[in-house]
């Protein structure tokens, strides 16, 4: 078993799982399909571990292996191979993706079990994991773009999974369209780079970039900015972020896997993978860092105001991804990827717990309606608390160490990066507040009706299933959620998955402790980022300061949030009334949807209407089609007119022809 074989197997297993489930759908019972999917991903994780072990056997200077199957394209100087690139970064991503995916599959086996489209769900989910692995393991930019597109498609399929819900299908379309905008940027950016360099494979690309371009060359900057647009769209950064909250229309495992742990981190991976290019175009890197910082602040503020549970977590994701984008753009790679991993753990955990809570609420997602679930759902509450502590970087949780490492590495660059450093800490404040707002509102206070029902051991079922957003009445056939609601306390698959993630959220910090206590992660990722030209001078003072600040922020604002939301007595509404316009701004998500609607959607719709009413009607139907058919019809009518059916006209034509021939012969003889 060589490294390349293990890597190919990691890639092939989810694809095989997806095909087996999809094509054999009529023979598997849904249960079997679910387990096939889970086992496929679990096996892929095992092989990723094997790849990890084999990778460490390679010498550190050359810790990369490539392998290709065949040429996809080999024409006119363009050579694209179906190849993979196995180095520490891709193995790290593969481990995170397969590990978290396996747990989420396990969760879904329990959570989705009354859904009529269960088999389809697992086929899609496996396909998504395959696409994500293709993206991270791809050996050249072209294959990465293929994986990128597949991931977008899988996201669309899964967001619109309950396809009879119009809100879900519109959300899926919105996500797909915005992702396509990013795809255009990605492809154009790739072209800019390809134009100068002539290759798309990673090895030659990274080695040759400093020779082919000057530092901060305009065309390199342009290309990298376009690629960053792709990263922003996929990772839901401002201004291409509006699809992520709507993507919460998908089932909770989908939100957990795709929109927290894996797909949205693809942008982070892309920037990390292309770091030699990005470092050689510092302008583009700076843009990326600033966008990341802006996003983390904006998303944090919105998270303070929205009331839908899943959307709070979605904005939290957006904010944390903003941290990661900021980090990798500022060449803080180890911190960025460390945070990616811990974030995958605790965010997936939070989403899973949210799924359990929403089930208890019989599909209702609004925080306004949830209260006092602490006694009724102890396990879910515990998971929320663990995830929340990790997210708010409470001391000694994994999030604490990862966020700190991230911000430290940014601060180590000095200069204007201190502004990003400060933004990161402001964002931490916001993070703590919105996290604990969510938890206190849902779990403290008088139990609401559903919680009271649950305390007596009975899950609340609504009279008719309804759409949580619009209140439309639905049914439970295929295309809508199933009728049973599964909570963690009653479903062992959910408990097992959540428990595993909770443990990981607590202990994962040990991979990279501060002050060099452990440096396993940094050493592991070192070979990939050895060619980084950015300096991170050690700064112990800053490190200590950062740790203390994070701890203080986490504890203090936890208490502040407790005062405002857990104790109750209208403090929250008092704050809301004190800043009405700010509150309105946050609740309306900074009006981005309206802005995009005004600037883009309306003009495009106008053009479409004009094209259909005027251009299509007059030019295409009238002139082109009508004209052509008119000419043909006139011609054929003219010819038809000769066929009068009159014997005499035919005879006349014969005589005319005869005289013409005779005339010709006469003239010729003359």
């Amino acid at each position: 078993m060589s490294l390349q074989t293990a890597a190919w197997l990691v890639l092939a297993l989810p694809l095989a799982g997806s095909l087996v489930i999809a094509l054999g759908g009529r023979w598997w019972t849904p249960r079997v399909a679910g387990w096939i999917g889970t086992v496929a991903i679990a096996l892929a994780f095992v092989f990723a571990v094997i790849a990890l072990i084999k990778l460490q056997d390679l010498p550190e200077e050359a810790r990369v292996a490539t392998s290709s199957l065949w040429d996809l394209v080999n024409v006119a100087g363009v050579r694209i191979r179906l190849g993979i690139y196995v180095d520490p970064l891709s193995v790290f991503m593969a481990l995170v993706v397969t590990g978290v995916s396996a747990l989420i599959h396990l969760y879904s086996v329990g959570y989705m079990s009354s859904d009529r489209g269960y088999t389809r769900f697992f086929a899609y989910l496996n396909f998504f994991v395959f696409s994500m692995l293709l993206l991270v393991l791809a050996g050249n930019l072209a294959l990465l773009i293929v994986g990128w597109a597949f991931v977008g498609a899988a996201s669309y399929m899964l967001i619109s999974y309950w396809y009879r819900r119009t809100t879900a299908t519109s959300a899926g379309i919105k996500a797909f369209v915005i992702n396509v905008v990013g795809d255009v940027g990605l492809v154009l950016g790739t072209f800019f780079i390809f134009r100068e360099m002539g290759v798309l494979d990673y090895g030659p690309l990274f080695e040759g970039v400093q020779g082919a371009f000057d530092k901060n060359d305009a065309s390199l900057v342009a290309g990298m900015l376009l690629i960053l647009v792709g990263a922003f769209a996929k990772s839901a950064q401002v201004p291409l972020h509006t699809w992520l909250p709507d993507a919460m229309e998908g089932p909770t495992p989908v939100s957990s896997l795709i929109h927290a742990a894996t797909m949205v981190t693809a942008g982070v991976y892309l920037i990390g993978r292309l770091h030699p290019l990005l470092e050689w175009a510092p302008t583009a890197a700076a843009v990326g860092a600033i966008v990341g910082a802006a996003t983390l602040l904006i998303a944090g503020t919105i998270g303070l105001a929205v009331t839908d549970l899943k959307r709070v977590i979605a904005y939290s994701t957006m904010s944390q991804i903003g941290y990661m984008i900021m980090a990798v753009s500022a060449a803080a790679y180890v911190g960025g990827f460390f945070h990616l991993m811990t974030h995958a753990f605790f965010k997936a955990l939070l989403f899973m717990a949210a799924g359990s809570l929403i089930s208890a609420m019989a599909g209702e997602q609004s925080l306004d309606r949830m209260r006092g679930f602490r006694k009724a759902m102890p396990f879910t509450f515990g998971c929320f608390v663990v995830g929340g502590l990790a997210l708010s970087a409470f001391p000694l949780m994994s999030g604490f160490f990862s966020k700190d490492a991230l911000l430290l590495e940014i601060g180590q660059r000095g200069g204007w990066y201190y502004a990003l450093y400060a933004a990161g800490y402001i964002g931490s404040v916001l993070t703590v507040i919105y996290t604990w707002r969510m938890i206190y509102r849902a779990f403290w206070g008088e139990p609401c009706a559903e919680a009271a029902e649950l305390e007596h051991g009975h899950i609340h079922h609504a009279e008719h299933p309804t759409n949580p957003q619009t209140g439309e009445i639905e049914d439970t056939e295929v295309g809508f959620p199933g009728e049973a609601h599964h909570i963690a306390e009653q479903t062992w698959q959910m408990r097992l998955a959540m428990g595993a993630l909770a443990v990981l959220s607590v202990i994962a910090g040990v991979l990279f402790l501060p002050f060099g206590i452990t440096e396993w992660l940094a050493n592991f990722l070192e070979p990939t980022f050895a060619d980084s030209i950015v300096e991170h001078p050690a700064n112990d003072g800053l490190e200590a300061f950062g740790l203390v600040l994070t701890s203080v922020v986490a504890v203090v604002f936890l208490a502040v949030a407790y005062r405002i939301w857990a104790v109750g007595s209208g403090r929250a509404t008092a704050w809301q009334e004190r800043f009405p316009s700010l509150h309105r701004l946050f609740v309306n998500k900074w009006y981005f949807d309206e802005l995009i609607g005004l600037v883009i959607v309306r003009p495009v719709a106008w053009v479409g209407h004009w094209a259909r009413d005027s251009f299509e009607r007059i030019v295409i139907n009238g002139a082109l089609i009508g004209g052509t058919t008119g000419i043909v019809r006139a011609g054929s009518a003219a010819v038809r007119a000769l066929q009068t059916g009159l014997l005499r006209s035919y005879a006349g034509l014969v005589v005319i022809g005869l005289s013409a021939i005779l005339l010709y012969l006469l003239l010729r003889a003359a």
Partner: protein
Amino acid sequence: MGFLFFLFAIVALAGAVGVVILRNPFYCVLALVVHLIALALLFLLLEAQFVAVAQVVVYAGAVMVLYVFVVAYVGGGDRPGPLWRATARQRTLAIVFGLAVFIELAIAILGTGLKALDTDGPKVTVAYGSPAEIGDLLLNRFLLPFELASFLLLLAAVGAVALSGRRAGIPEDEIHAPERTVDPTHDLVSSPMPPSAGSMAEGVAGYGVTRPLPAPSEESPG
């Protein structure tokens, strides 16, 4: 010789003009008979004795008798309609082009012919044009055309019988087929088409050419 030629030629032409002009078809037939006999005499002048006699016996004798019978049966209709219902333009065009043909032929012929007006022509043997000569040629050199011509006669005979025989089973009253209209909204093979979609049926029925297009009906789908 010359005098006889002109005599017979004028009679032949008179007969021909009569065929074209006379109203009553029976009179036309009679005019043609006259023309044929004059032509036979012209053939005699050309030393084609056998052909001349064949002309009289076969053509004027048999074919024209056939014509007479048919004209008697069919007639010119009860009211012989006006000769010309062709438009004035068609009339003039016909005459013009007929004239054109004649003039061209005349130029072609007379261009060469006027020179040798008084020659005798090549010498021919006595047997030229005699039945013996014809028979010899027919059965030796032109055996194949002879056989084919007989075959053709057989075909014509069978065809004529088939055409004019009564078909069994169809009563006389129903022989006249009802006027069959062609519905342009139904193509013969496929599903209903909207009018003016250009189907073959439409073309055959003359819609858009000699008939106006029918209005689109409500029930035929697009």
